[in-house]
């Protein structure tokens, strides 16, 4: 059964929210009362519940199957964390209540902040950024502020070809010119290539480590030292922190700023696209420029520094957002950290790396590895060479996975590899689950090799929808529902609006 839009079934005179009656006093709206009601149909609770339950059933989710998206870290989201975030003492407090009434909340933020500092080996952290890209922006702003503070107007940011799109977008947003660094044949960054680019106008380099090819940048310390020697800063994209959690501290690699996706490494749920949280750890050199606000712990309890005049010796560059960051995500991340502990977090990283390598080793005979059959970190990158001559594309291959009950892996990213397929299993999959996934991919790879192109070109067949026409969507954008135009003599539905 197809599920209609609420605008097609809801009625303007229906509401699913009863409110109490009360005596009315004259309004004081200064003549600005709304003149026409919005076209917002209502559904009663039975209708709304069914509508959204049925819509939900059209989604794939980590709770329904392995979600092998590289660079996205779709791991299990513990239910305790959801429960904790809903405690009234966390979920039902206002960001501008007196600090005396939110001491536990400030302590929670402090707890997470301290944990991130220990895990990264960095001296400071800015908690307010609302997602990874926001964290990147925050980190790069801190770099810009630090450069300014020393009167240094640098204009270039170096970004490897394999970087996430957010990296160049962030740099550009701040007015930097982006210069690309090509990848070495082995998929990592060549320190010599970096050094060659390190002119005096380079403000920073933005590196992802482990990188988006699933490899640890083995020359990262040399790169960091060269960057620092050139007076530039080292921004690290922390999207892949899951691979090294508890095993490697970015602070020991010479990182100056790195955002941490709490919705990846620390397992706050993705929610179909958000919300996330992107705290940024900062080096000694950048710590003083961290944005407002932050939590401080003192003898009389916790306090919030919300304004520059209370910032002590620091020089906050400004404010990233209203209020204090993604509290709801902090609670979940705290629960995850406490549940795993130092031992469990290290084990999680190891299991994630182990799982990716297990997939690599189990598929290397059938699928092609662009950088050879060598250990990867928590994600393994294949290219489409093994599909050469089969008539099957990376896209076809990925869509065929849907028919086997799996979400596709990340495709065509990173851009440095032709027809990339980036697979990240995470630590939450059992060996049985990995084995079934491997068997499925082997079966598909062999089917492609055998020339069973029908199985690929037409996929998916067993999903709520066949392949969707994305070109049409972009060429003739329909971005909202509109009442259909009147047809013939009958008045159109809702035409009265």
């Amino acid at each position, binding site marked *: 059964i197809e599920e209609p839009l609420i605008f097609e079934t809801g009625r303007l005179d229906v509401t699913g*929210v009863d*409110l109490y009656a009360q005596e009315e006093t004259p309004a*004081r709206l*200064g003549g*600005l009362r*709304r003149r026409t*009601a*919005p076209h917002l149909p*209502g559904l009663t*609770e039975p209708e709304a519940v069914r509508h*959204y339950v049925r819509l939900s059933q*059209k989604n794939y*989710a*980590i709770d329904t199957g392995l979600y092998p998206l590289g660079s996205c870290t*779709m791991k299990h989201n513990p239910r305790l964390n959801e429960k904790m975030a809903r405690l*009234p*003492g966390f*979920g*039902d*407090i*206002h*960001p*501008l*209540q007196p600090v005396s*009434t939110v*001491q*536990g909340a400030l302590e929670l933020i402090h707890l997470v902040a301290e944990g991130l500092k220990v895990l990264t080996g960095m001296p400071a952290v800015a908690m307010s950024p609302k997602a990874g890209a*926001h964290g990147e922006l925050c980190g790069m702003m801190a770099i*810009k502020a630090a450069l300014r503070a020393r009167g240094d107007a640098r204009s270039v940011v170096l970004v490897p070809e394999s970087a996430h*799109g*957010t990296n*160049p*977008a962030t740099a550009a947003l701040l*007015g930097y010119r982006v210069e690309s660094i090509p990848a070495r044949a082995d998929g990592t960054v060549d320190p010599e290539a970096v050094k060659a680019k390190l002119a005096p106008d380079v403000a920073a380099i933005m590196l992802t480590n482990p990188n988006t090819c699933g490899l*640890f940048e083995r020359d990262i310390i040399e790169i960091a030292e060269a960057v620092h020697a050139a007076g530039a800063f080292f921004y690290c994209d922390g999207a892949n922190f899951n691979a090294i959690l508890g*095993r490697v501290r970015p602070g020991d*690699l010479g990182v100056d700023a790195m955002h941490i996706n709490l919705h990846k490494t620390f397992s706050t*749920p*993705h*929610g179909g696209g*958000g*919300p996330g949280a992107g705290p940024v750890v900062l080096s000694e050199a950048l710590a003083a420029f961290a944005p407002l606000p932050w939590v401080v712990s003192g003898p009389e309890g916790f306090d919030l520094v919300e*304004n520059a005049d209370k910032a002590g010796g620091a020089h906050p560059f*400004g404010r*990233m957002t*209203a209020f204090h960051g993604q509290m709801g*995500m902090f609670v979940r991340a705290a629960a995850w950290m406490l*549940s795993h*502990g*130092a031992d469990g977090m290290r084990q999680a990283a190891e299991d994630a790396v*182990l799982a990716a390598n*297990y997939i690599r080793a*189990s598929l290397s005979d059938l699928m092609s590895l662009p950088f050879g059959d060598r*250990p990867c970190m928590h994600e393994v990158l294949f290219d489409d060479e093994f599909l050469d001559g089969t008539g099957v594309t990376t896209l076809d291959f990925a869509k065929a996975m849907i028919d086997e009950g799996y979400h596709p892996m990340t495709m065509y990213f990173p851009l440095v590899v032709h027809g990339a397929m980036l697979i990240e299993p995470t630590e939450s999959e*059992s060996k049985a689950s990995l084995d079934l996934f491997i068997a499925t991919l082997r079966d598909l790879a062999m089917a492609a090799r055998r020339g069973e192109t029908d199985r690929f070109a037409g996929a998916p067949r067993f999903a709520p*929808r*066949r392949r*969707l026409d*994305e070109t049409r969507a972009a060429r003739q954008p329909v971005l*909202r529902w509109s009442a259909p135009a009147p047809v013939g003599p009958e008045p159109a539905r809702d035409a009265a609006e």
Partner: protein
Amino acid sequence: MRYLPLTEADRAAMLAKIGVSSIDDLFADVPRAAWRTDPVDLPKAKSEMEVERLLARLAGRNVAAASVPFFVGAGAYRHHVPASVDHLIQRSEFLTSYTPYQPEVSQGTLQVLFEFQTQVAELTGMEVANASMYDGSTATGEAVLMAHRLTRREKAVVAGNLHPHYRAVVENLAEMAGHEVEVLPPVPVGAEDILGRIDDTVSCVVVQSPDVFGNLVDMAPIAEKAHAHGALLIAVFTEVVSLGLIEPPGAMGADIVVGEGQGIGNGLNFGGPYVGLFATRQKFVRQMPGRLCGQTVDAEGRRGFVLTLSTREQHIRREKATSNICTNSGLCALAFTIHMTLLGARGLERLAEINHQNAVKLADMLGAVPGVDVLNTAFFNEFTIRIPGKAHEAIEALARKGVLGGVPASRLYPGEGLDNLILVAATEINTDDDRAAYVTALEEVVG
């Protein structure tokens, strides 16, 4: 460990398959200088029961809004969210799914986004809306950047009564990007001369209504003047419920409407996660930041939804993107959509009406306290009072009496001479008893 399915036997078998002797071999590329052999200096793993106890203790040290007479607003509002909303957003298929880049297996999320975009457009009186931003403040920052792109000018004029946190976000972004921003001083009572600041160098005017002091602003004259000079009007709101009762910015000529959607479907959460709403005209859509969901058809001709116009986005356009935003507020947008669907136009109007009525009642009661003045003439559910003493001390004193009475203006505007003002919000959650308790406590505090 309860979240890690691999057993020691599994690990051994997997290492054997990989052909290495230990997990350390897989970390061979890590420089020795950064090689850690021991766990970091954090406590060891805890049982679920222990974690729950520890976090519940922290939560217990906060005063939950539901437990006291509660009148705090200034950018975040406590409304009653139907129980079904939280139930539905916890559905595994919504909660634990990724961004819907694979539309064939993400039609649930995508259809929700299409409904969300339509609802936001209807509410704001605009033509199109995106699939959410982080929150109202960052949406405002993005709106200014978008106005710069559209007008190819780089100067924004910002009303003095824009929420100071929003102002700070805009200022920071502008300053970091090398743009100019002219901010007027706050005006708790009376009008500011924003019209006088608009000239042909201005890309946009940023105006909030209800403003941070609760005043309703007629934006039509500002839109007119801005358009006459080739500038855009960016209308901002922090209380989305107000749109149920007051004229929407789209009807007053706004070109971009941004605001905080938390008030519908989402709790206070100590400031986040919230959901930024972002709506504009159809013709501006290709300069819009953020994700967009569009309607299309599948290979069998059936209606379906996809993320679209992604050539605006960073993952396709990289440094040429309209914004660097990636993860947004999907689940908060879902909560918004469900709550909005339950309300419908009729429920929303009634909700807004009750909010306004409760604010009017409270304003009259507080205004009758000796020494206390209500500053606003026209307001929605929030207003400003002037008290004889320091507002921040009064708020602390009220808290000790078990009343969370609002936000001292000086917390938002330190050092700007607004030390006697309290921003007071009233919503449908307030009862007669709550209001009476506030009056009694305030009388004691200022008496």
